[in-house]
């Protein structure tokens, strides 16, 4: 390390001494040692360079005495040489390492959700008031084999479809990357609301098997925590091929996070790095995927729908078609805004495609091939609101996965330092001093509230469109209009421009 860093602190912690009561809550709560107390002088002070602007101290301060400011850019950024680039270069000049980051792509690429608008009823058909009329969000996930015959209804060997009471599930976040408390919050909320959470690739802790009925149990390239009991306990099995934040990249959970319980759950030695290879080393082709799908189905006597999760990449439609034909019941597509606990910054910010376009393309392709009913389509990657959910479903998704939004509900302040394991909010950490800040009771309530709020909003939007069931929205792109989109974008999304009639 050079003695002189060219990179001044990004943030500045300002304390209003008129307000500060010196209760030291900030000192005790800062996960990054930015807040300090000098007992001899009875003085509080901040080490700005350590501050990551996670806002924990600001939130906890009973006196409201703290504010965190962003320092002016250290150099002289311009439209081309942005502050981010400058800081990254300096950091790498000092460390020589690969830039790491957490959470989702934060670069100013277009967000198509923000260029899509929804429809509503006026005069010719009534809008429906969800407070007075039933409004149905229940969604079934799995392969919908048609036609329906009276005989097959009695066939018990058929893989059951999985109902969720709202088309929103919690996306994969592994135990190890997030704390047991955060993981348990997701599990509890999923069960309470009647939806699913996703174990991610780190297995399911023994004490949470009571929630397995609401779990999507993931099988990833590291195969951590995968055993027959795990597969059979879950409601859905998901083969993780890719992740939107880091398509084509494996995972690396450092040994510090492999505490004893994490190690036990993952079935690896305590303190060893958990490495997920970039590919599954038994899947080098679509035929191999098919084999794994049917291996998992055999292992669970065809009682569990199998999902395959891929990141949205350029050829996503064809890949999805192949996956559908390989026997998957569900295809989950993770867009380039999808989050992560740790990813190389360059990969996160520059690989993959927007989920809106991916969903539109996949849905269209599967319909053209007449196999859309064979799979459920789950969209993931940066869903910020119920409106995003509604738009994704109108574009063709059956349901969506949310993770970043869920973490924000749990307290995440998007400081993007998940990979340090120091999360001040008790989420992305295995340090018990930090993780116990997240009481799963409260966490589950907050997640439940989020689902409740979003679901209610979805009902309002559906009612406004004059429909009272989510399946009437699925792929119903007539309820979408683009604004400020060019011909190609409109065509890819399969929507008309705002102002065009039905």
């Amino acid at each position, binding site marked *: 390390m050079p003695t002189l860093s060219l990179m001044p602190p990004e943030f500045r912690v300002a304390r209003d001494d008129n307000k500060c009561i010196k209760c030291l809550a900030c000192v005790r709560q800062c996960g990054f040692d930015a807040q300090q107390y000098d007992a001899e002088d009875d003085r509080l002070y901040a080490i700005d360079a350590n501050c990551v602007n996670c806002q924990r101290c600001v939130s906890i301060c009973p006196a409201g005495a703290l504010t965190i400011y962003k320092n002016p850019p250290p150099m002289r950024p311009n439209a081309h040489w942005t502050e981010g680039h400058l800081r990254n270069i300096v950091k790498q000049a000092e460390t020589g390492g690969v830039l790491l980051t957490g959470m989702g792509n934060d670069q100013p690429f277009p967000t198509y959700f923000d260029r899509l608008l929804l429809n509503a009823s006026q005069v*010719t058909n009534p809008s429906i008031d969800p407070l007075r009329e039933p409004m*149905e969000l229940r969604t079934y996930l799995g392969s919908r084999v048609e*036609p329906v*015959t*009276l005989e097959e209804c009695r066939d018990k060997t058929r893989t059951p479809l999985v109902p969720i009471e709202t088309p929103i599930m919690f996306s994969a976040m592994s135990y190890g990357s997030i704390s047991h408390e955060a993981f348990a919050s997701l599990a509890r909320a999923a069960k309470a609301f009647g939806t699913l959470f996703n174990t991610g690739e780190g297995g399911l802790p023994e004490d949470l098997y009571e929630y397995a009925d609401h779990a999507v149990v993931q099988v990833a390239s590291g195969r951590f925590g995968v055993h027959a009991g795990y597969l059979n306990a879950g409601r859905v099995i998901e083969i993780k091929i890719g992740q939107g934040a880091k398509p084509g990249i494996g995972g690396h959970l450092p040994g510090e996070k492999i505490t004893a319980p994490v190690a036990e759950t993952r079935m690896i030695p305590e303190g060893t790095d958990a490495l997920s290879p970039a590919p599954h080393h038994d899947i080098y082709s679509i035929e191999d995927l098919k084999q794994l799908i049917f291996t998992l189905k055999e292992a669970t006597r065809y009682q569990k729908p199998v999902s395959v999760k891929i990141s949205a990449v350029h050829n996503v439609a064809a890949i999805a078609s192949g996956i559908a034909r390989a026997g998957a019941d569900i295809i989950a597509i993770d867009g380039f805004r999808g989050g992560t606990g740790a990813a190389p910054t360059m990969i996160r910010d520059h690989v993959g495609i927007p989920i809106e376009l991916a969903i539109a393309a996949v849905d269209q392709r599967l319909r053209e091939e007449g196999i859309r009913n064979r799979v459920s389509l789950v969209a993931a990657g940066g869903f910020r609101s119920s409106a995003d959910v509604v738009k994704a479903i109108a574009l063709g998704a059956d349901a969506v996965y949310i993770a970043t939004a869920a973490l924000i509900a749990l307290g995440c302040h998007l400081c993007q330092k998940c990979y340090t394991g120091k999360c001040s909010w008790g989420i992305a950490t295995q340090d018990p001093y930090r993780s116990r800040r997240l009481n799963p009771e409260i966490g589950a309530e907050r997640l439940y509230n989020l689902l409740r709020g979003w679901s209610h909003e979805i009902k309002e939007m559906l009612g406004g469109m*004059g*429909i009272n069931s989510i399946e009437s929205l699925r*792929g119903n*792109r007539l309820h979408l209009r683009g604004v400020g989109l060019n011909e190609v974008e409109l065509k890819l999304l399969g929507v008309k421009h705002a102002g065009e009639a039905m």
Partner: protein
Amino acid sequence: MLREGDYRVPSGCAISGFINKDGRRVDGSAIIQSIALMQERSNGLGGGFAAYGIYPEYKDYYALHLLFEDKLSRNLVEELIKDNFYIEAEDRIPTRHVRSIGKAPLLWRYFVTPRLSKIEESKETEADFMTRLVMRINDSVNGAYVVSSGKNMGAFKGVGYPEDIGEFFRLDEYQAYTWIAHGRFPTNTPGWWGGAHPFTLLDWSVVHNGEISSYGANRRFLEMYGYKMTLQTDTEVVAYAIDLLVRRHKLPLELAARVLAAPLWQVIDRLPAAERDLYTRLRVVYGSLLLNGPFSIIVGFSGGLMALNDRIKLRPLVAAFHGATLYVASEEAAIREICPDVERVWYPQGGEPVIGRLEEESQCRLSA
């Protein structure tokens, strides 16, 4: 100006229909009288009828009712027909001059039977072959439109108030055991003769009052099965959905109705296990065919009639009995207008299909 088929047309409407289950055939004056009563629900931009049992002499032939906007389209279509069918008979559909009806397109009918060689060549069932041909005409021949294509039935429709359309098509001269009628109030101009109701496919005919907000979802689902929505009307979607469910996927009409107007989950959840499983499966597999939004429809088919409301009954529908006759209409007055002494009148619940079928004996008699 764009017309039906170029963009989506929502519309409000009046519907009426009846079936004599004993097979007794009556002329069109009663149905005209009934639909005329509800003139307020129409705006003169479309009216139409479907009648079953009207061509006993050609009952084994597909009766193609066609409209052409010009000679050229007629030639193109006739060429297509001749390529694929034997034509047993053809004529201009008889009309009479009605002052309020403006310039009518060319209206022709052909009684045809498909060439076996062509069906074999296509490796399709006869019905699929017929369907595809109808779609092809509607889709690819500019200016031509197949108004109806079933056996021993026909649709008569055009721009105008329904009573004027009935007069124009001389419906008093046809004898049918089922009549259904439609008066249209499109919320987009202009009316186009092909765009009027009923909408038909093979034996199916559908009249419809309402607006189906799930149209986009329904349509994209049906497109997976090769249906082409040439008109972009809800009615078209209903007809194709029923065709898919009943003719192609062999569901009983009663269950097809439970797809179009699916019971709420809260109702399904309370059903006995076997039924629950069946209904769940219907909704899960055919969820995209749920007709969501306000509607009441009358579906005519060979030997029967079904009336159906959306599941939360956002549009009017009333049914009544008198003797062997089942009446359904948007308004009770439209029934009492032609049958003042109905024996029983009821308002079917949302999603509860009202189905009338020819009694077995008359079924035999009519098809003999």
